[in-house]
């Protein structure tokens, strides 16, 4: 996911140990969807402390959709979408595979991914197994201050950020001329530690000797995340209709383990009678059933697409700490998309979509008693009550593409939406990791976004330039507002963070210029800028949280042509300058600008009729100490990873006689 960061307009929210969440033009969490082989990936997107449950080795091609993409995907694609495409099937009559090896120096990561594939003419099967194991990661400092509390780091290791990941994938399918159907089954699992000295933002004293004994062990606090998925994609061609059906089942199971700490009014000693395991702080268990269907056909000079999406979710919770209640969700949407060719140069397109979402939230009571009023008798507080909400939404967009000689113009305006999530409607718990009492708002309306996008592209043989400005208006952006109050009963004395809605404007854009004076040398500049401002409510005048600072990336790539047995050889240097971010909103901190240098090099060479690919990256070449404004740990001033060498090797092999190289 972090490799996407190079793309202008795409950032990630770092959450430690190389894990991250996507941020498109400053919007993330439930405002960006990740589409995996046509099906919306559903984990715990709202949470700031775990990554995307996708095995990077299984990813072949990723497409980024910046801006509202709701009309194809429904709720949540209000900020954009990350589309992980279906990998192309193996070539006919092939039988082979490849072995990937990866090593990273910063967190001593070792990984491998082994892939096998076989295809007759119309039938194929593939299998993949991935294993990655990494130690605590290193930062360019030996002392941190969590609030004012000094934390000494043993040999620059960020205590307890080690982890391991496994991925298992299997696919099989039939590829006929008029009928194609493929099943994809996968399971990803990870176990990773949280930085021990600050669980969330809460300073914790730790047994340093225990943690520092090994940089590879995983002690508490840690999390386990398992994601199981079955997806089917079926395509039928009838006359001039192309019918596609995507169906899927997913189970996301996440557990957070921590030593019991009695916060607020929780009992000092964990009661034996409680049937929640003593170290299980949180558990989220989610089942998702999805179905998408669409029909694409030609009608005169109209290219039409009719489609529908349906999803059913069951969410259960466990653990001694409470943030979000259990809930069920059903959603159904339908759309029409039309592309109209006016001439060779001008394309008009438009879409209309209607969605209906039903949400059922379930009651949750504390397992311990708290005083419910000043000197009142203690009682079991109701943290969330049963609640039913339904949302309806009509969205759409219109746009045009126009080409003249070397110029291309794209313009689009549209409306997108997002239904409020369970946490926003009914959270009523203390998040001890943030010293906050998060209070949901049952009256939230679906968030709406109006956006205008422009794209101007110029391309010639040596130069390609693209500017993509956007303007975005939210009449009711849902925002977790830190108020000036503390709450004594439900909030156990913590600051009240209340979900509210505000008018928000956002604008900005990306600029990409690539200049290639010679065949073997190119230079590139990628720039981005975002501005956001709240126009109403308690935080009028403030920005939105996690606003990425302006940044520019300069790159020079050298690709020698005559290199003997070596092919695809390159050497590339990235220089990124990131501006200071002074535009903040409570509880953020201003973040100073920084510049970073990354170097990438690679080549491939033949070995027994196959091409072995070798690549080397040096990230943060000068071991620069810097803070990332969009990192989860920014508030406790945790610097980003120091210098990191990444070496990867891909060794393809083939069993069958016909020699076909796989991508």
């Amino acid at each position: 996911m972090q490799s996407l960061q190079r793309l202008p307009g795409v950032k990630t929210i770092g959450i430690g140990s190389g894990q991250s969440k996507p941020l498109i033009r400053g919007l993330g969490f439930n405002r960006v969807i990740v589409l995996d082989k046509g099906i919306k990936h559903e984990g715990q997107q709202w949470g700031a402390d775990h990554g995307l449950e996708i095995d990077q080795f299984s990813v072949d091609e990723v497409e980024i959709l910046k801006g509202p993409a709701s009309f194809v995907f429904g709720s949540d694609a209000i900020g954009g979408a990350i589309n992980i495409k279906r990998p192309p099937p193996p070539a006919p009559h092939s039988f082979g595979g490849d072995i990937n090896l990866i090593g990273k120096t910063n967190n001593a990561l070792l990984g491998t991914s082994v892939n096998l594939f076989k295809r007759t003419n119309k039938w194929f099967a593939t299998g993949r197994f991935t294993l990655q194991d990494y130690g605590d990661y290193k930062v360019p400092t030996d002392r941190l201050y969590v609030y004012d509390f000094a934390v000494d780091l043993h040999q620059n290791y960020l205590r307890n950020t080690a982890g391991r990941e496994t991925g298992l994938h299997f696919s099989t399918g039939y590829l006929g001329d008029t009928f194609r159907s493929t099943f994809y089954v996968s399971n990803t699992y990870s176990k990773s530690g949280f930085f021990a000295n600050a669980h969330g933002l809460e300073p914790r004293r730790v047994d340093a000797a225990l943690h520092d004994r090994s940089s590879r062990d995983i002690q508490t606090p840690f999390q386990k995340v398992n994601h199981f998925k079955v997806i089917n994609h079926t395509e039928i061609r009838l006359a001039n209709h192309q019918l596609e059906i995507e169906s899927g089942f997913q189970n996301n199971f996440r557990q957070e383990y921590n030593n019991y700490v009695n916060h607020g009014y929780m009992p000092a000693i964990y009661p034996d009678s409680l049937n929640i395991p003593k170290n299980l702080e949180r558990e989220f268990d989610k089942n998702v059933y999805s179905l998408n269907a669409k029909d694409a056909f030609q009608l005169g000079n109209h290219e039409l697409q009719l489609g529908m999406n349906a999803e059913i979710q069951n969410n259960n919770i466990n653990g001694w700490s409470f943030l979000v209640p259990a809930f069920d969700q059903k959603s159904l949407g339908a759309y029409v998309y039309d592309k109209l060719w006016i001439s060779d140069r001008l394309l008009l397109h438009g879409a209309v979509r209607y969605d209906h979402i039903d949400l059922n939230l379930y009651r949750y009571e504390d397992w311990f008693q708290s005083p419910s009023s000043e000197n009142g008798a203690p009682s079991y507080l109701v943290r969330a009550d049963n609640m039913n909400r339904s949302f309806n939404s009509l969205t759409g967009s219109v746009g045009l593409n126009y080409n003249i000689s070397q110029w291309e113009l794209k313009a689009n305006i549209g409306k997108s939406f997002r239904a409020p999530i369970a946490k926003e409607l009914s959270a009523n718990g203390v998040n001890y990791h943030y010293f906050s009492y998060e209070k949901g708002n049952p009256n939230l309306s679906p968030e709406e976004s109006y956006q205008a996008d422009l794209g101007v592209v110029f391309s010639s043989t040596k130069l390609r330039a693209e500017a993509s400005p956007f303007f975005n208006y939210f009449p009711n952006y849902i925002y977790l507002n830190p108020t000036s109050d503390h709450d004594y009963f439900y909030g156990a004395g913590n600051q009240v963070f209340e979900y509210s809605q505000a008018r928000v404007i956002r604008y900005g854009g990306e600029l990409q210029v690539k200049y290639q004076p010679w065949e073997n040398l190119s230079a590139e500049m990628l720039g981005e800028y975002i501005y956001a401002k709240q126009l109403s409510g308690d935080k009028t005048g403030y920005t939105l949280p996690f606003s990425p600072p302006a940044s520019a990336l300069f790159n020079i790539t050298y690709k020698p042509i005559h290199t003997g047995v070596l092919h695809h050889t390159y050497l590339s240097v990235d220089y990124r300058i990131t501006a200071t971010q002074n535009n903040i909103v409570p509880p953020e901190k201003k973040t100073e600008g920084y510049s970073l240098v990354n170097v990438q090099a690679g080549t491939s060479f033949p070995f027994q009729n196959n091409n072995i690919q070798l690549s080397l990256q040096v990230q943060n070449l000068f071991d620069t100490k810097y803070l990332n404004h969009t990192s989860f740990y920014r508030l406790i001033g945790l610097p980003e990873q120091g210098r990191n060498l990444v070496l990867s090797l891909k060794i393809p092999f083939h069993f069958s006689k016909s020699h076909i190289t796989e991508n």
Partner: protein
Amino acid sequence: MKRKQWIKNWLVASVALAAIASCSKKDSSIVDTEYPSIDVSASNSFPKQCSEIQRGQKFIAMIHVSDNKELGSLNVDIHHNFDHHSHSTEVNDCSLNPVQTPVNPLVLIKSISVPAGQTKYVAQQEIEIPADIDPGDYHFLIRITDKEGWQTIKGLSIKIK
């Protein structure tokens, strides 16, 4: 010809972005981005890091808080640190008692009212420590917000004897 076009393209693109960028400059300085502060070093501030408090007695907490614009709400929280879990935000550690198992530890969460419109305030709050609670290491956590929602936290290690 090529070169001219190249410059022109560059200009168009950068002017468009610059126009957008320049609009924002004036706004960011208007909003308040300053955190309130807690001064535990003032001479009459109490408790201080490593202060000792007696069971069965009252004491007066004296808390100095300030903000550049307007203070919000003030809150104190006393909870045990028998397991040495530590919220102390002070650099110097006090000598801690050995780890102990809580039986009847003190849990006290209290709001202290701050009059509206203040930028500086010295809160005085009488706090009574019951006689039957466990003695030992405790934390005294102070939380102050300002009107805009910025919060500052100070955690002090104290001993209840």
